[in-house]
């Protein structure tokens, strides 16, 4: 019997079968790789916390990251749903790090910010997840940008301004200001809001420690 390829019945059955087959394959691939993906994500999160606390860098090995994390970082109770907080004592000084998700230009930006418990000086900032415009706003993940926050003094209004500068990074750690990214002023604004929010959370947690 020759199949009537253009009949409604065949079209519906064919579409249904093909869609199901490919979706099942994708779901299987997703399930099989899930434990690996989860492990990767938890490693990425641990690494970002250490990076924000300035306890790890690009040359730190995977095993070192995990051992430093378990020995140096204490996970604190969640300050709010979807957030996470970490405490650490480095060279006798206490630090608080928070994981925060805030809106960006195209999607949420997730970052980890570490500061002293009074939120007077930033210890470090590390981007964990962002979907900003590649090559423009996407550069907020690059070291030259995040390194500007290292040791930056927080302004009396609890803010660090992200504003246009030379575009090469602002070396002054006392002016509570970092250079924005040329061509990505909206993303820079979002980072400024995210940092201010994170600092407020650090202060809150630090006050109750």
């Amino acid at each position, binding site marked *: 019997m020759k199949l009537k*390829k253009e009949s409604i019945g065949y079209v519906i059955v064919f579409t249904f079968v093909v869609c199901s087959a490919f979706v099942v394959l994708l779901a299987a691939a*997703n399930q099989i790789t899930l434990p690996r993906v989860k492990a*990767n994500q938890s490693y990425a999160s641990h690494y970002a916390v250490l990076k924000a606390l300035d306890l790890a860098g690009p040359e730190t090995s995977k095993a070192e990251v995990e051992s430093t994390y378990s020995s140096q970082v204490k996970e604190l109770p969640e300050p709010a749903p979807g957030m996470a907080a970490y405490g650490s004592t480095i060279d006798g000084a206490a630090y608080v790090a928070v994981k925060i998700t805030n809106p960006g230009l195209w999607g949420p930006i997730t970052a980890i910010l570490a500061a002293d418990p009074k939120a007077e000086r930033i210890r470090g900032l590390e981007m964990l997840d962002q979907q900003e415009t*590649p090559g423009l706003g996407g550069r907020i993940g690059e070291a030259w940008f995040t390194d500007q926050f290292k040791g930056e003094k927080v302004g009396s209004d609890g803010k660090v301004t992200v504003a246009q500068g030379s575009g090469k990074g602002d070396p002054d750690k006392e002016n509570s200001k970092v250079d924005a990214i040329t061509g990505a002023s909206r993303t820079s604004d979002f980072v400024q809001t995210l940092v201010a929010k994170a600092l407020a959370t650090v202060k809150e947690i630090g006050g109750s420690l």
Partner: protein
Amino acid sequence: MSPARKIMKDGLWTNNPIFVQVLGICSTLAVTNNLRNTLIMVLGVTFATAMGSWTLSLLKDLIPRKVRMIVQVLVLSFYVIIIDILLRAYQPAISKQLGPYVGLIITNCILMGRAEAFAAANKPGASFIDGIANGLGYGWVLVCIAVIREFFGFGSFFGIKFMGEGFTPWTIMVMAPSAFFLVAMALWAANTYKAKAEAKKKGTK
């Protein structure tokens, strides 16, 4: 010329996806400001086009005409998501770097273009080679543009800086507009050369 060689030559030059078909321009604008992202994009597109064309060619006698585009999108996005899943599981660093780029492969018109123009009427093996040829044809043009953009935009090559401190990066090269005029210049150069070569051929006949 053997059929396989002809398909290769078509994809790489005679019927180059960028120069002649003018497909996949969107990604040309997005990823060519650094070489590493460009190469990964090229590999992704080549893999998805080749595997997608191969699968669609296998299924072509079963696909009703009314829903062929739906099936094409389904199969192509299947391979794109597979790439995304594999990268996330086995190359998390690259996956994080690329972020939205991988998903963007599906919006590359080369995939649908080849499925519709070639795989729908040719054998699976030939369609596979056609996918590879078009992916590479797209790739070499992109790599050339990326070399120029990364060189002037960042003063680097594969992220390795080799211009001195005194070098002022051309910000325009990092941004999309530079891709517009570089692609346009490349198109112009390639088509002028092609027209001249053809005129010469006709003259000698």
